[in-house]
């Protein structure tokens, strides 16, 4: 082998080793979730001081007992349902509000659209951790304490700014010809929006749906502040705070809940990652 080929070979191996290193760090907690979900308790609760018992693998036959416990004796199914309700409501509000707003900023607003768009995006930076204390008071005044409606009302405060920004970017990247043609054909400006734009905006709207879904799934602090009954919790609140019996964590069931919730999220997210990055890089990356 020539020196050149040897170097290329070494580089290839180096790339794989480095990539595997990063992937191991990123994926390790998920491996651990999966392993814990299916391990029997006698295999799970062995002190780490016992160096002969290897925790990285199954030392006893895998079991479905934790998942059975999760679905039959905990409120997890209820939390899934609650989360679904909140997601659907928030997605509806976000799409109805953010899609026209994004279109307006991209196509109709002209000069002030740019500044307004950045203004809306900046409100996304005002975090829930700054607002949850006044919200605890507002939610009490509105009589929404311990109700899923509090989340439905409050979550759009972060999904609308983010999704308006995404939609604005989406419409900017779509050529203007179609709308122009429709207007020449005699449609009004509003008619163009409803009959033409919404049709080719389906991928953009789908992106809004996906990111509203993931932002809602990620939320914790508002849910923790507003919701106190176990049967009204969402998944991302209930699993960490209410899946404890007495003082004992049921790690098998807990990791099962984390695993089951994570898998669909990961798949969906992976499909839409590129558009997300486009939205966040603020045009610093030119495609």
């Amino acid at each position, binding site marked *: 082998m020539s020196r050149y080929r040897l170097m290329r070979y070494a580089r290839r191996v180096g790339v794989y080793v480095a990539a595997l290193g990063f992937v191991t760090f990123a994926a390790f907690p998920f491996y651990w979730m999966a392993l814990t979900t299916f391990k029997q308790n006698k295999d799970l609760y062995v002190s*780490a001081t016992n160096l002969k018992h290897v925790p990285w693998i199954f030392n006893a036959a895998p079991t479905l007992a934790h998942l059975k416990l999760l679905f039959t004796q905990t409120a997890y199914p209820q939390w899934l349902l609650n989360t679904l309700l909140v997601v659907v409501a928030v997605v509806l509000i976000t799409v109805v509000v953010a899609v026209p707003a994004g279109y307006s900023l991209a196509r109709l607003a002209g000069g002030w659209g740019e500044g307004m768009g950045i203004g809306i995006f900046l409100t996304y930076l005002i975090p829930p951790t700054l607002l949850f204390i*006044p919200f605890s008071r507002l939610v009490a005044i509105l009589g929404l304490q311990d109700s899923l409606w509090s989340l439905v009302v409050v979550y*759009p405060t972060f999904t609308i700014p983010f999704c308006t920004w995404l939609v604005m970017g989406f419409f900017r990247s779509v050529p203007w010809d179609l709308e122009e043609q429709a207007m020449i054909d005699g449609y009004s400006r509003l008619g163009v929006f409803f009959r033409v734009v919404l049709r080719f905006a389906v991928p953009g709207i789908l992106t809004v749906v996906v990111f509203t879904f993931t932002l809602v799934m990620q939320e914790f602090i508002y849910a923790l502040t507003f919701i106190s009954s176990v049967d009204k919790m969402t998944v991302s609140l209930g699993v960490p705070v209410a899946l404890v019996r007495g003082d004992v964590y049921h790690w098998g069931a807990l990791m099962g809940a984390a695993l089951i919730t994570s898998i669909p999220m990961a798949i969906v997210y992976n499909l839409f990652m590129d558009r997300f990055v486009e939205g966040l890089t603020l045009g610093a990356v030119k495609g």
Partner: protein
Amino acid sequence: MRLPFGPIELPPRETFADRESLLAKVMLAPAVLYVAVLVGIPFVLAILLSFSNARAGSLSFSWVGLSNYAAVLSDPTFRRALLNTVIVTVAVQVLVVILATAAAMVFRAAFVGKRIMRFFLLLPWAVPITLAVMAWTWIFDSTFSVVNWTLKVAGLLHGWLYWLGSPTLGLIAIIIVQVWRLFPFATVIVLAGMTSIPQDVVEAAIMDGAGFWRRLFQIELPFLLPVVTVAVLFGIVYTATNMSVVYLLTGGGPADSTHVLPTLAFQRGIEGLDLGQGAAIALFLLPFLLVAAIGMLRIARRSEMGSP
């Protein structure tokens, strides 16, 4: 990609459905109203509350001027939380930038299995953060920690590490989890930025005999600076304002030593019912947000003007 041309001029028509400037405002109004009412009002209320002695559950309160601020500033727990927030935010950004740039260099190369590896690399960013933190809590468990087992078997650990039971290790654990959560996101952003490096410049440098490090520091990194800045600015916001990681991992303990501003604000404001003090603590996040906002505005303006 931006459009080289805007809407073309059409003969003016007078119906509502054709008046662009009016239509623009009507379509934008719901979004602006929603945000103005439900972000603007709470934000102002947060500032007002921080000057009051409001307590949860009662509707009456009176103004107390700066006494909440005076109280928290003289409170060692608060100063510790502020310091922790700065330490964690800075440490996480430094580590994330290094890791993400390195990972992007690796994942730029074409290799078999890249798609599936990319899927795994992005997992931390996709899953609900609270569920991932529970996995880490279990990984750092005081009795069953797989980290300790592995270090012991490798012969690197002789005593025992109580990850979530000591102030220093607790902070390290918090930093590890935050880095884990943010570096995939930063990697993707840096990867996107790499496409903007002009290949002819890189090739010219190779022809001129520039080695790997020289190319990295003198050509590629300067081109990557804007995207890396974006990643860092978002990272600052996501780290400094995050509450769930610390709340679930250490709960601010042991003995309130690992609190950050959001968890302390929650403890005082919601659990301790002292809304005024909680609001004052949370408002100390504003400097972090201002840094991020100003940085992003500058980048948005620069990219508008067309320079890299």
